[in-house]
């Protein structure tokens, strides 16, 4: 049987890469410290495979065919196509088809209907955390793309259930495998909207407190009320909710939170309690 060895979350704002050289020294130091600590925790858990939950920023999907949730079942995934992210060291990343297919089968048995893809490019949402955490060699990656970008979105309750289903899939996988779950995105930010650049620090800190105490229904109520006012990018907190579900709502330990105006994002990093 496979074992769930860690559940994590990290922000992924593109400006972390594009604006790196113009960030204030303290901003760079804080981000470096956060990613380093997250990387240390992931490496200590020694995952063979990492299920990474991230949105697709118009790289794989368009409004002619836009899955709510898609699982990447391919043997390999392409690296990020963004022209400004050529520093990323991998043009190809290994997938884990047996685990990915098991996730899809488990999903269907539990009345979820994911889309599947044999050929995905993993954009900055996946690759900034994978790169900045220094995970080398990379574990095999099972991408799970949540539509956090183009409304309407999956409900937060459903995202939690998805995460719980992922944990069931790991537990029932018929092979010896150490598996981690990494959710990326959030916390508050606004992109291409009239409040672009606004970071809702009050929302972020309230949100973090609710993830810390682990009360899932209270978290759902909070997010249903407050997500719409925290910027369109805050929708990516759905991925964190899925991670919360994978960790059975046990609550997380915040690694670091910094609202970083030059990144436009309230940057949060966390790992869940599994014991």
């Amino acid at each position, binding site marked *: 049987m496979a074992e769930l060895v860690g559940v994590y979350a990290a922000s992924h704002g593109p400006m972390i890469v594009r604006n790196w050289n113009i960030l204030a020294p303290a901003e760079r130091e804080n981000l470096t410290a956060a990613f380093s600590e997250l990387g240390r925790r992931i490496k200590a858990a020694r995952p063979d495979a990492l299920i990474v939950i991230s949105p697709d920023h*118009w*790289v794989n999907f368009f*409004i002619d065919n836009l899955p709510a949730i898609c699982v990447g079942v391919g043997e390999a995934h392409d690296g990020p196509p963004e022209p400004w992210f050529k520093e990323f060291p991998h043009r190809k990343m290994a997938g884990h088809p047996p685990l990915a297919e098991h996730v899809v089968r488990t999903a269907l048995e539990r009345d979820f209907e994911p889309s599947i893809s044999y050929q995905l490019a993993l954009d900055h949402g996946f690759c900034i955390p994978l790169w900045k955490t220094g995970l080398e060699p990379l574990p095999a990656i099972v991408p799970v793309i949540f539509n956090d970008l183009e409304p309407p979105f999956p409900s937060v309750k459903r995202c939690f259930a998805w995460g719980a289903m992922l944990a069931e899939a790991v537990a029932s996988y018929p092979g010896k495998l150490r598996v981690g779950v990494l959710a990326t995105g959030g916390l508050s930010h606004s*992109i291409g909207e009239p409040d*672009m650049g606004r970071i809702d620090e009050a929302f972020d800190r309230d949100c973090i407190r609710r993830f810390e105490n682990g009360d899932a229904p209270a978290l759902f109520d909070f997010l249903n009320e407050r997500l719409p006012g925290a910027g*369109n990018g805050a929708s990516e907190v759905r991925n964190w909710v899925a991670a919360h579900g994978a960790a059975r709502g046990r609550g997380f330990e915040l690694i670091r939170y910094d609202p970083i105006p030059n990144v436009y994002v309230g940057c949060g990093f966390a790992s869940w309690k599994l014991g």
Partner: protein
Amino acid sequence: MRDYWLSKLFFDLQSPPLADEYRADRNAVLARYPLKPAVRAAVEADDVAALSRLVNPYLLRFYFLMAGMPEEDFLRRIRSSGAPASRSTARG
């Protein structure tokens, strides 16, 4: 509601060769997309506010970066484009 062909134009411009062509000869690329006259006029006028009502905000942000609008200029225009979109449409 999205404008499909405007969205398709912005989506396709993520291809660096097409973006190069667009920056060199915008009209040649626009001619290949069946944009409504008012939408095409908004593109030609770099009308951030009008276009923001027709496409996903991430594609809007990408488009003006690709087209070479300075960040400060884009921020000024999007911030003065009106009230945030309604809860039921564009927000998260």
